[in-house]
């Protein structure tokens, strides 16, 4: 029965998304055109990728607060490189960005797992260290759109089956992470490690290895998004994605990923990200000023967390059944 309920939870999210679409559509019919929805999906793609990779970390009872800074730093580094060597193949930049992100993630993992610095302290620290490094490498200057090669910027706008390749990146990442978390030992062990760290030790799960791997993965995808963000907005600067880590975490929380670890579905996470992304796009569509965005996001996070907690509550073990 409980399994049905969990499926229901994702269903509830889906319904909310549907309801919002309808509600906004009534007030602003342009919002529900194919083009508009496709724009929303494209706009939300980066958030989806980051939320799914953040989920890996949250599953093992940790958080990665440095993803936005990681993203920005990786993006800036490849942008600077592309200024100097604009003719390098695009795939090179993408892989390099992922690589840089992974290194930054590995640093987090090492500090947390080996040096035993608590994850809050570590990722709060790297959040500012990485952000600060952007200034150093760029001298505070921005890299503007005209300074990128055409191939660099245009690729994500290329359409396959009438959806941008940015969207397809998100689809690929979703498939990869879905398989990872549901069909591999590594993924299932993440659930075990987060659900009962003491017991996981007895099963032979090496906690340190999993911590390092989780943060490396989070960093990898942050690096990927570094390229995607810069290409999408056609600018690399010290300011990009500031505060975005909070949006990412709220997408996960709304999606039902428990911060206590060991609980949460990939589909739920996807729906959480879609919901947050939808709201961000829906507000301007119904003429709510952008200044309300932050407050509304905050309110949604809180409401989602409270609802989560009420459904998650660890029930006391039943000693007698209700009928007794």
């Amino acid at each position: 029965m409980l399994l049905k309920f969990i499926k229901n939870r994702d269903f509830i999210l889906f319904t909310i998304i549907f309801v919002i679409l309808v509600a906004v559509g009534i007030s602003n019919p342009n919002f529900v055109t194919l083009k508009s929805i496709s724009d929303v999906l494209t706009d939300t793609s980066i958030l989806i990728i980051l939320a799914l990779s953040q989920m890996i970390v949250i599953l093992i009872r940790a958080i990665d607060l440095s993803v936005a800074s990681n993203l920005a730093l990786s993006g800036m580094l490849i942008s600077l490189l592309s200024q100097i060597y604009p003719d390098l193949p695009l795939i090179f930049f993408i892989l390099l960005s992922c690589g840089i992100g992974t290194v930054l993630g590995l640093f987090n993992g090492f500090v947390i797992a080996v040096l035993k610095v608590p994850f809050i302290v570590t990722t709060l620290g790297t959040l500012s260290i990485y952000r600060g490094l952007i200034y150093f490498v760029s001298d505070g200057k921005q890299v503007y759109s005209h300074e990128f090669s055409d191939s660099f910027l245009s690729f994500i706008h290329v359409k396959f089956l009438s959806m941008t390749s940015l969207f397809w990146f998100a689809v690929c990442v979703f498939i990869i992470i879905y398989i990872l978390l549901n069909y591999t030992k590594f993924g299932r062990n993440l659930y075990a490690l987060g659900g009962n760290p003491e017991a996981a030790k007895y099963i032979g799960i090496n906690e340190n290895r999993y911590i390092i791997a989780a943060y490396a993965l989070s960093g990898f995808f942050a690096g990927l998004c570094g390229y995607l963000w810069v290409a999408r907005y056609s600018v690399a600067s010290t300011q990009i994605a500031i505060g975005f880590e909070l949006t990412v975490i709220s997408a996960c929380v709304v999606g039902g990923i428990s911060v206590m670890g060991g609980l949460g579905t990939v589909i739920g996470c996807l729906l959480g990200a879609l919901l947050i992304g939808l709201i961000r796009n829906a507000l301007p569509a119904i003429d709510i000023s952008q200044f309300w965005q932050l407050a509304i996001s905050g309110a949604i996070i809180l409401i989602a967390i409270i609802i989560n907690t009420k459904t998650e509550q660890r029930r006391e073990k039943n000693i007698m059944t209700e009928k007794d």
Partner: protein
Amino acid sequence: MNNIPLTPPKNILNIFYKKEFILFLVLILLIIFNSQISPYFLDLYNLIDSTFLFSEKAIIALSMTFVIIARQIDLSVASIIAVSSCVLGYTTSIGLPTFYVISLTLLSGGVCGAFNGFIITRYAIPSIIVTIGTMSLFRGLAYSFLEDQYYNKFPDIVVKLGSDYLFGYIPYAFLTFIILTLCFAFVLHKTIIGKRIFAIGNNPDAAKYTGINVDKYTFVLFTMNGIFSALASIFLSGRLSSVRPNIAFGWELQIITMVVLGGVYIYGGSGSILGVFISIIILGMLSFGLGLLNVPGVGIIIFTGLLLIISIGLPSFIKYFRNQNE
């Protein structure tokens, strides 16, 4: 019936292991280093002026120390500053008497803090997540209220408190910080309130079973954090004399750094006000010194992040290498 001593046999070497002593050494080294680097460092007036940059954060750090020792964390403090400075500016702009302006400002901080405390205790949600949410909610409210405007008119006393000196020497903000340090130290280390906070942070379940009302203490600590954030916002607004919704952006990180660097364990249960005090001075001098060297603000931020990680990671790092060699 042998009476045992309070502390281990007096061994001068023991003092070297105390965190506070190490911090003190670091401070001395820093002062020496800085004075070699720049002739302007040891100038008394410069030093006094340098306190303006950290006094407001320092006040919040004191209250945050209690929160962290109690095994909680509050990431929304900077956003509470935003809300209270809005209240400060607004109440001034509609012409309310100064007494009401200040009371309402402090009250707004208290309400924000109480909101945090309520959600955390009523729904038993980890404070890190709740305050990530309220961090956005509160600052968002400030943005939606102010939009892209700003306030620049505040009561005279506020401006005086934020930027003026007592007897021409001692900045009011720094003085308040010193007085509060003594108060907080007294409460934490000499009263039963402090003992209970340590107990809660060390083992909330055991504390509950001992009859301590953990929820009540948690609620009060968050409310207090809100009030002190509002107090800091009064000093800050007086100093800046212009308040936008992005005020104090990123301050929560710096405040937490002050506390954790001071030897307070992030998972609660141990720490001292003395340690936090020394760490605040260290960080203040560091910023000041780096500033004299014309290191840009961002360099200081990177340095602070590294310092935070190193200060906690270094003991483990040394142990790691020792283990490798065995």
